């Protein structure tokens, strides 16, 4: 009883006023006041989330609706809009493909091998999360742009990077680098090397071990990382603007299209593209949630193996 009375003390000043004496009314009062505190907290949190997340999205949808759905659809069906969408789609495809390979092998290299500079390179993997993409774009221009360090080499092989598709791809790859490497490395670390060693003693070659044991164990994490990379690619603005220059029909992506459309007061195009991107994001988010659940299930499965060792 005493314990019950004391518990609410932790919850906040509103409850602290409740008498500690064991009068018959005290429990109901405490319960009511606790319920009030809960409602207040929920109101504040949901209110904030609604203001920050839902209100802008709602405003966008309302504005789009007011412009007229037909006009908006027409605006994003224009060749330039379709070009921008196409560029974004190709970027996503390239980023996913490259990250799938680099992410998996990079993570294996970091977790399973010891080499000089491993710690530094591993830490550098998080750099894209910490620095501004615009700055990164600028750095790349200094590196591969006209007069840059690598410029003579690129000219020699006839490759132009800045203000071309290669430029925006380079920027995109940079900003999406951490996702798959981190996700896969984390799972590899958790799983350990036992299963891979077991495969080896059973006669599996390194490739057999990779495809039959390692890859199946990390596939959920890999998928999760790739979805995050895809979402980041769709939303990336700074790096692709600086490195690509948002040239219509060439290096303009969905995000830079919106930016340019607003500048030109081409509202139906801007709103339409924004809604489309929002829909894509919602789709990716739902996939992420689904992936998360699968990952949690997989992790639960692996954990139940170790827990049962003690209990059974």
């Amino acid at each position, binding site marked *: 009883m005493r314990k019950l009375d004391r518990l609410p003390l932790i919850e906040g000043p509103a409850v602290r006023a409740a008498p500690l004496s064991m009068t018959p009314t005290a429990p109901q009062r405490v319960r009511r006041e606790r319920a009030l505190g809960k409602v207040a907290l929920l109101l504040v949190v949901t209110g904030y989330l609604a203001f920050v997340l839902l209100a802008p999205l709602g405003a966008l949808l309302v504005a789009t609706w007011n412009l007229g759905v037909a006009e908006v659809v027409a605006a994003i069906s224009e060749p330039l809009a379709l070009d921008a969408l196409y560029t974004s789609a190709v970027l996503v495809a390239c980023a996913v493909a490259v990250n799938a390979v680099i992410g998996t092998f990079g993570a294996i290299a970091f977790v399973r091998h010891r080499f000089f500079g491993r710690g530094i390179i591993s830490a550098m993997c998080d750099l894209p999360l910490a620095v501004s993409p615009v700055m990164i774009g600028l750095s790349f221009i200094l590196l591969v742009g006209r007069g840059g360090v690598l410029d003579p080499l690129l000219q020699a092989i006839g490759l132009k990077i800045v203000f071309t598709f290669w430029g925006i791809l380079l920027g995109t790859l940079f900003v999406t680098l951490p996702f798959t490497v981190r996700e896969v490395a984390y799972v590899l670390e958790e799983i350990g090397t*036992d299963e891979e060693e077991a495969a080896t003693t059973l006669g*599996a070659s390194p490739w057999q071990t990779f495809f039959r044991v390692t890859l199946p164990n990390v596939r959920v994490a890999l998928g999760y990382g790739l979805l995050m990379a895809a979402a980041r690619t769709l939303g990336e603005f700074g790096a692709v603007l600086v490195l690509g220059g948002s040239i219509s029909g060439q290096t303009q992506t969905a995000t830079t299209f919106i930016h340019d459309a607003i500048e030109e007061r081409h509202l139906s195009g801007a709103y339409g593209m924004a809604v489309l991107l929002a829909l894509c994001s919602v789709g990716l988010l739902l996939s992420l949630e689904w992936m998360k659940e699968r990952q949690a299930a997989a992790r639960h499965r692996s954990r139940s193996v170790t827990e049962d060792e003690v209990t059974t």
Partner: protein
Amino acid sequence: MSIRVENLRKNFGTFAAVDDVSFEVESGSLVALLGPSGSGKSTILRILAGLESPDSGRVWFDGKEATTVHARSRAIGFVFQHYALFRHLTVAQNIAFGLDVRGVEKGVSAARVGELLELVGLAGLGGRYPSQLSGGQRQRVALARALAPAPRLLLLDEPFGAVDAKVREELRQWLRKLHDEVGVTSIFVTHDQDEAFSVSDRVLVIHKGRLEQLGSPSEILDEPATEFVARFVGEVNVFPAHAAGGLATVGALESEIQHGPADGPIQFVVRSYDLKFWREDPGVATVERIVTLGDRVRVHANLDGAGPLVAQFPRRSSLLRGIDVGCRIQVQVTTGRAYPSQPPLAGGP
């Protein structure tokens, strides 16, 4: 398959995990590597498997050198301490793994899997996932998986460490039976002396990366070669003492030395069951505590001038007659061993 290991060494940084170990294992035998944790026994096992390469020394399988043969070509079966079952594969797929990677025909491998499931008593569970099995069942799957490609040598790393006491006892008996049926040369690592003695034909006692003794369970129990083995195996009393002319002086007790140096500073080691007590005043010791352990009784006494002394007797032993807490007793050592004095050993059970 017979195994010969010569002067094996392995360092991890400055730590000598395996320090000049040599031994031979006869084909078809079941051998235990026994030692406290961190003694290097698992490293020896991993070197035999090819999962670890020695800094120096050689490994011979059936007279052919295997030191540099890759783990996947050694034709060994390895059972990991935490089973290391492939969690995304079913029990049957796990067992078939070693056959599949070698390109064994589906029909043949399916038949072999069925055979093995039968052998380990898991028929009908082939479609389950490892997460749906109990610890003991997983252990059996791990064994079946290791046995599937018909290995020449079976290596087991603390095979029963992760299951509870009752299942462990069952699995031990079962492993012994299985070994006698299959007949494959097997080496297992354990820190549990009961396990080593009850299951294996030969025991290698490992301590600090060195091989302390190799012998049959009774040789190791009856004739411990070093002080470490004497201390590690069974319940013992150890007294620093001085020997002169084959007699050790331990406090008020003077006792004959059956094995070991006859003169000089020694460690005098007496097993708890190599003692005789009888009531006598003044005697040399006082009984302090009597503990009943099922069919045995443990008597704690204090030996004048030497300290605590532990003895074990069968519960109905006539030696216990008249012995009560607080009484004075005379003590006789039936088998006493002396080992040259050296700095006290760290570790132990």
